[in-house]
């Protein structure tokens, strides 16, 4: 597997392993404050629909504890905080301080407070005890993690028995025609938009490439089972542009 090599993919270019962490951090440092609008523009707003679908399927209820890993600017954290209420807890964890700061300010401005914790954490070494969360999510984050197998093992570890992991991530487009159009969009249009909006073509080039390097639906499902999940399944959204993988710990 990729993590046994001394180099690792950074988008399509191979870089020494320890450098990837630094590079990924750089990418998100440079896009943090423009991140929300880029999200809207890039997916034409549909990312909200994908996220809403994820939230609904989680079946979340008051009193539960949720880990929103790679939570970034906190879209999912916000929705979960509203649902778990003051008797529950949501932890927004992200490796990048700027993203967490933008997320925290944004949520506090929107009146979300009292049941959300913010923490800087690497997905590969989660700073939480075993069996802590009823639900863990990682939305558009796993593809950036260097050692995905380790991250999945960590996610399994911190889930309570009966808990559920939800991985929302760009995946393999199932429809050939759409697949072509989507390729064109991600490699030609997306980086240009990144240049115009965030003045940062390289970061968005990386985003496009990292999407393509991410494991496809079946591979990720198998990785989840290998990481210890007792059951795993996935659901394609928008013809597989995005897939929602769910894993359960029994």
């Amino acid at each position, binding site marked *: 597997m990729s993590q046994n090599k001394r180099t690792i993919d950074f988008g399509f270019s191979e870089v020494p392993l320890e450098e990837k962490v630094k590079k990924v951090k750089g990418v998100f440092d440079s896009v943090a404050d423009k991140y929300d609008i880029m999200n809207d523009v890039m997916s034409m707003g549909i990312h909200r629909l994908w996220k809403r679908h994820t939230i609904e399927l989680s079946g979340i209820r*008051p009193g539960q504890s949720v880990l929103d890993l790679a939570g970034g600017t906190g879209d999912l954290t916000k929705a979960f905080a509203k649902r778990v209420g003051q008797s529950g807890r949501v932890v927004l964890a992200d490796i990048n301080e700027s993203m967490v700061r933008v997320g925290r300010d944004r949520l506090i401005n929107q009146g979300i407070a009292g049941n959300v914790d913010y923490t800087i954490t690497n997905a590969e070494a989660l700073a939480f005890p075993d069996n802590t969360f009823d639900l863990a999510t990682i939305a558009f984050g796993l593809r950036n993690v260097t050692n995905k197998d380790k991250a999945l093992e960590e996610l399994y570890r911190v889930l309570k028995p009966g808990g559920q992991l939800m991985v929302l991530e760009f995946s393999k487009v199932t429809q050939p025609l759409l697949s072509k159009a989507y390729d064109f969009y991600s490699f030609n249009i997306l980086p240009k938009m990144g240049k*115009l909006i965030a003045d940062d073509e390289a970061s968005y080039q990386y985003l496009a490439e990292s999407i393509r390097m991410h494991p496809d639906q079946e591979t990720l499902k198998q990785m989840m089972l290998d990481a210890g999940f007792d059951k795993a399944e996935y659901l394609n959204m928008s013809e597989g542009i995005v897939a929602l993988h769910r894993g359960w710990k029994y």
Partner: protein
Amino acid sequence: MPNPQNANSQHATGLMSLTAAKLLETLLNEAIRLDAQHGAAFKALPECAIQLHLKDVQVNFYLVCTDYGISVQNALKGEADACIQTELAELVALHRTGQLNNAQLSGDDALATQFIQALANLDIDWEEHLSHYTGDLIAFKVGQAARSFAHAKETAKQQAADTLKEYLQFELNALPTKDQVMRFTDEVNRLQEQTDAIAERIEQLLNKRPHKADA
């Protein structure tokens, strides 16, 4: 036993029901915001999950109540604290009638009753809201794009509940993009403003680095 539909609920999150859940959520929270008492009756509820099962249209919602307001979703882990089984028409008439006459309650009955009371206090113009919803759906489904929006709205308003019922029963095959356009009009407006700002930025960039403009 609450949960007449629990087995289905995990899979019933088509776009249609997502939209319906979002609509109901917006409607309730908007009504609470406009309410003279700001929905004080809801604030008095403990944090809870209420299952609302609309028998006639075979739709199931879970209403999650916390200090932040009401969130509506299609799935719930475990059983709801209370379950209300009623009909769409009764729900729509609730503010006028003050009660759900033929509702069946299960789980925590007292909680369900308290919830219905809170709901009855809210003056929701269901028909107005539903007509927007069904009006949009009709316009899309039948493809009568040329028909004026006002006319669609007027027609739909007369039979809002009936039309909604029909659409909920026959799962609509809406294209995500169209559905998304309907739901995110607000965001589109916001994006419009941001686009203006971007346009300005592009101009600045072009002025700053003309030789790199098409790199």
